[in-house]
């Protein structure tokens, strides 16, 4: 009766179908879209929850960790699943929230070996990873595959989020190279305020949804910084570096090579 929607879908998505910018067409776009979420931790939890709720048709989830009790202070989709693979736990959560969403799980690390292959399969990438090598790897794979990507990172009471569109500017235009090992304290030492990934991950989900719907202004060329103690958001504008190693005029990085993304930091940040 109403296009290809079932009555349950009309009810489920009614609040966003009513939005003039979304409508039935936008909802169909969402249902046929594919988003890759790298990391099913704190950022991933909130991104996955809202992307699934909105009816993103296919969610790819990459993570090789198991759920630990120390995750539950901020990784809200994993309740009751201690010891289970995070990908599996996330899939269970999505299934109970919205059966329209097809979840593809990758119980492995996002690495130089699978980065481009994974990114290639999706329309948008959400970086919910917790370490510098992976942030750079996700950036580089997205730039090379010309896929938009939302970067998010959190520590203590602060969060950072920006959207990288194909063509740049990219994460390397903001932070040319990873910080030297040890400069940024390990996350287990530094701690994290549990609501942070909720706020930042939700912004990442909004960027993915806006991109798929083709609405609004992306958070591109702008690094949005959030401080939960001051309760402030501020924006730092950034431009494309001519000498950017991957999106600049003469890029040095033209393929993904493992030795560019080595874990020179022994510490594992489990944000």
């Amino acid at each position: 009766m109403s296009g290809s929607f079932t009555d349950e879908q009309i009810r489920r998505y009614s609040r966003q179908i009513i939005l003039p910018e979304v409508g039935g067409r936008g909802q169909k776009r969402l249902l046929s879209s594919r988003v890759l979420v790298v990391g099913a931790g704190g950022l991933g939890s909130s991104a996955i929850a809202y992307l699934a709720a909105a009816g993103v048709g296919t969610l790819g989830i990459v993570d090789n960790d198991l759920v630990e009790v120390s995750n539950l202070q901020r990784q809200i989709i994993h309740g009751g699943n201690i010891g289970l693979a995070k990908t599996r736990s996330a899939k269970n959560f999505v299934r109970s929230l919205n059966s329209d969403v097809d979840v593809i799980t990758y119980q492995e690390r996002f690495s130089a070996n699978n980065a481009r292959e994974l990114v290639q399969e999706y329309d948008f990438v959400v970086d919910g990873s917790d370490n510098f090598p992976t942030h750079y790897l996700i950036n580089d794979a997205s730039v090379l595959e010309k896929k938009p990507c939302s970067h998010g990172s959190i520590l203590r009471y602060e969060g950072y989020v920006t959207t990288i569109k194909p063509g740049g500017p990219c994460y390397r235009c903001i932070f040319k190279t990873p910080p030297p090992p040890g400069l940024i304290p390990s996350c287990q030492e530094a701690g994290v305020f549990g609501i942070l990934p909720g706020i930042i991950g939700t912004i990442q989900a909004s960027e993915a949804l806006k991109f798929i719907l083709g609405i609004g202004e992306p958070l591109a060329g702008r690094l949005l910084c959030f401080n939960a103690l001051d309760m402030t958001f501020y924006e730092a504008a950034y431009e494309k570096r001519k000498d950017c190693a991957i999106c600049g005029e003469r890029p040095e990085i033209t393929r993904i090579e493992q030795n560019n993304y080595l874990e020179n930091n022994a510490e594992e940040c489990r944000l």
Partner: protein
Amino acid sequence: MTEELDLRGEVCPYTFVKTKLRLEELDSGQDLIILLDDSAATANVSKSLRNDGHEILDLKTMSGGVWQILVKKA
């Protein structure tokens, strides 16, 4: 032949959601007849249609507590 959308028995906001979905399938300038059996829903749907820029050509009460809206898609 004007298309017809029978929303008798349906409640807000689904009356308008279903109207909106049907209108999306029509061409601009095409007419749609909507049947409703609730006065509040009839008022709400008419208001929302106007807000979205569509033109209400006719609104009348039929027998048996049924309202009919004739709308032209913007």
